[in-house]
């Protein structure tokens, strides 16, 4: 079974600085997706960034970028120019597309990010 590990339960960063959240996963599949989701206190799950395993190029979305190392099964999230609104729980997730047209996401336990003014 696939597993996702986030080794940092909590992280903090100064406003305008850069922070990197770690994620490793375990799978025997070659084709899969990886995600970072943000959950602010409002509880809403918000997709931050998505990476297809077959793509070597790291995904970027504005201030958010990933460092995807497929051989090492590592998928870290870098947040540049951190803003107060970035404070949230961040979940790394592994997606396994299935023949039946359904997708099971396996989540890590989350990293709580605090942004200090």
């Amino acid at each position: 079974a696939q597993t996702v590990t986030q080794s940092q339960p909590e992280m903090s960063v100064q406003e305008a600085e850069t922070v990197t959240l770690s994620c490793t996963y375990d799978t025997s599949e070659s084709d899969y997706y990886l995600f970072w989701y943000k959950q602010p206190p409002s509880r809403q799950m918000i997709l931050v960034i998505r990476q297809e395993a077959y793509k070597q190029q790291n995904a970027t979305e504005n201030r958010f970028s990933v460092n995807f190392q497929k051989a090492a099964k590592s998928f870290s999230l870098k947040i540049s120019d951190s803003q107060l609104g970035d404070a949230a729980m961040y979940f790394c997730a592994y997606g396994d597309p299935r023949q039946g047209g359904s997708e099971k996401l396996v989540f890590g336990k989350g990293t709580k990010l605090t942004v200090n003014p």
Partner: protein
Amino acid sequence: DTAVSQTPKYLVTQMGNDKSIKCEQNLGHDTMYWYKQDSKKFLKIMFSYNNKELIINETVPNRFSPKSPDKAHLNLHINSLELGDSAVYFCASSQDPRESNEKLFFGSGTQLSVL
């Protein structure tokens, strides 16, 4: 206009009761899901339906019964509620995961508290 909406947002009930949580998506997606987030924030899939057909059924007590009357709705009925059922339940939807832009859209969650 909310993409994935679930009701109620909060549900407080006594042990032993039966309750339902409703979910609707207006994205035209084929697949819908229920996820459970426990008190430690750990999110785990419970069920998924594709075009009203059950696809994923993780190890969930049979007191939990999903029902999909059509592909835009996936309701979750829970019988004989137990203290351990207290959690936040998230509904989600997606199109075909084989699509290149596939992603999950989540509802805002239902916080269930069993007393």
